[in-house]
Each structure stands twice: as C-alpha cells, then as structure tokens.
C-alpha cells in the first residue's frame, strides 16, 4: 500500500507564512544491506519529492539512501491564494504517490 499524509492549515490570511508537513510510508531500503545468506538486498528508495501550489512548484527535494524510512518533511511557503497544494513522491521500482490538501486564503 502506498500511503502518504500532507497536512497544512485549512485557512490562512493572504501573506501568512504557512507550514506544510509531508510524510510518506516507505521502507527506504538502502541497497547496502545483505540477507543472512549474503545475498545483496537491492536498493528501493524514494528518489524525488516535489510540491506544487496551484500548479507552481514551491519545493523540491532529492532523496538518498541515508534518509530514514517513512521520511517526514516540513517546509513553509507564503499563502497567496486559495487552491490546492499537491505533494508527489517518486522512487525506485515505479514508486509514485501524490497527495494534496486544500487551502482557503482570505
């Protein structure tokens, strides 16, 4: 199951700095580990994250094997207009998940 949670304030005043929290369920298998029989466990990680505000990109991150499982990101932006903030994660083995949240700016 691919699962992700995006949370941000439902309402804000124009010009407010809002905090966006994004977490995705992922094992982040590094590719450096071996099974007890010595067989390497292939790498399976999230490699990219991007967040858009009404279609315009406001935040981007590149992930590497040293990042913990179920990675959690927080960042901020300025509330400019009502609309949708959408976060998408992509990674190895075709992993892809998009989760969005609505914001009303008064």
């Amino acid at each position, binding site marked *: *199951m691919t*699962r*992700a*949670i995006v*949370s941000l304030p439902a309402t804000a005043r124009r010009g407010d700095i809002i905090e966006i*929290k994004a*977490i*995705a*369920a992922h*094992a*982040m298998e590094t590719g450096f580990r071996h099974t007890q029989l010595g067989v390497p466990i292939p790498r399976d990680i999230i490699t990219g994250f991007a967040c858009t505000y009404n279609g315009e990109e406001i935040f981007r991150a590149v992930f590497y094997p040293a990042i*913990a*499982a*179920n990675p*959690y990101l*927080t960042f901020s932006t300025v509330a400019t207009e009502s609309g949708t903030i959408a976060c998408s994660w992509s990674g190895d083995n075709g992993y892809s998940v998009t989760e969005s949240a609505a914001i009303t700016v008064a």
Partner: protein
Amino acid sequence: MQCGFTMLRPVYLALLLAASAMPAHTAEIAPAERRSGYEMMSRETRAMQDDDAANPAMLWVLDGEVLWNKKMGAAGLACADCHGDARASMKGVAARYPAFDAARARPVDLEQRINTCRTEKQEAPPLAFESRDLLALTAYIGRQSRGMPIRIEADARMSPFIEAGREMYNRRQGQLNLACAQCHDDNWGKRLAGNVIPQAHPTGYPLYRLEWQNLGSLQRRLRNCLVGIRAEPYDYGANEFVDLELFLMWRARGMTIETPAVRP
C-alpha cells in the same frame, strides 16, 4: 599469597551462591510514581507523537481503516459488517486487552482476537504476527482507545494468568540472569548505555520505534528485552508472552492509552 587466596575462596563462593539464590528485588512502583515512557522522551520525540501529521504510526492507522472496511475471506465479510463504525464500537476495547477468551479458557491479546475473527467469521487465513496488515488493524483499533484508562479485569478467571505473568516478570532468566523487575522496577530512570530505562508500561502499543524504523507490537518489544538479557525468546503468540503482556497491562491499570505512540 597462595595461602591467603585459598582461604578467601570459600568466602567468594558463599557470596556468589547467596547472590544467585537471592530472588529478584520486587519492590513494586507506587501508583503515584508510575510514569509512561513518554515522559522520559526528548521534547522532539514527544512532539512527533503528539502531532498526527508527524507521527509515522498514523500511516498504519490509515491503512487499518481501509482494512476495517474491506471485505475478506470466503465469507466475504469486512470487520465493519459486524462491528460497524470502529470509532464507536472499538472505543475502549484495546484498553481492556488481553481479555479472557472462553473458547481457549485463557486470555488472548488483541492480535490473537483479530485473527480469531478472521479465521472464524471472515474465513480468511490468520495474519502473521508483525505483518503490516495485522499491525495496521491493531493500530487502528488501538487508536480508538487513545486517552482512555487501561482497565484489566482481575477476576477469578484472569488472576491465575496475571500471577503467571508476574512470576515471569520477577524471574531471573537468560545468560545475564536478570529479571524484568531488576531494570524496570528497581532502576527505572537510570541509564543503560545511552538510553533511559523506562518503567515498562505498555501504554502505546503497537508503537513506532525510531530504532526499528517501523511499527511494532508489544511482543516484538518483549523479544528485544529477552534477547538483551540473552534468554531464548518465546514464539510470537506463545502463552507465556500473553501472560506477561497481561501482567504489564494490569500493572499499568488506570494509565492512559497513547496508541499509536512513538518511542526512541
């Protein structure tokens, strides 16, 4: 020198024998002094548990909600078909488990209870212990009791099993010859290597342990401790584990359920 050493030896032996024959110290923690492991965590880890948007265990709770409503097994039944909305029907349930199961004539924990429903009502194969689905369902059901006090029925049917759990808790075992009580009753609050020794109240299971990078059950945590004292852990679902879970929940009676908690 040689002579002195030989003379001392019986004294050493006597001391050693006395130490190994001594029962583990069993000073129980007074109710007013009981503290959840939450209170011994760093501010950052507490904040992670308190904020559902930051608590990684909520990923399993959401999966559990999907599973609760999904039709399964030969009977084609979802949990919700019998139990309805978990927010109402499962409120307080996790706070009274392990509970007595008449068919087995002994207490069962929440994981075993879910699997009983699966095999008997849904006619589906039981879920493996520590599998993602079983953890998700347990976390979802446990979440409905968050903030409620632990209530274990210590009636005539249950008390022999609580006593069996207490006996195990106070029994020295493993190559290090340690009882649970020696750390968690006698030395809580001190440090074992870099970590604070908690009082071992199972208030938040299944919980997200940062060390595991995963959600885990109380039995997984108990296995950790047993391996730590170099004792042979029991199999998942073993009666000994359920008795110990029951004793620990009874010992934490009245404390608040935090499920799903976060621990370092």
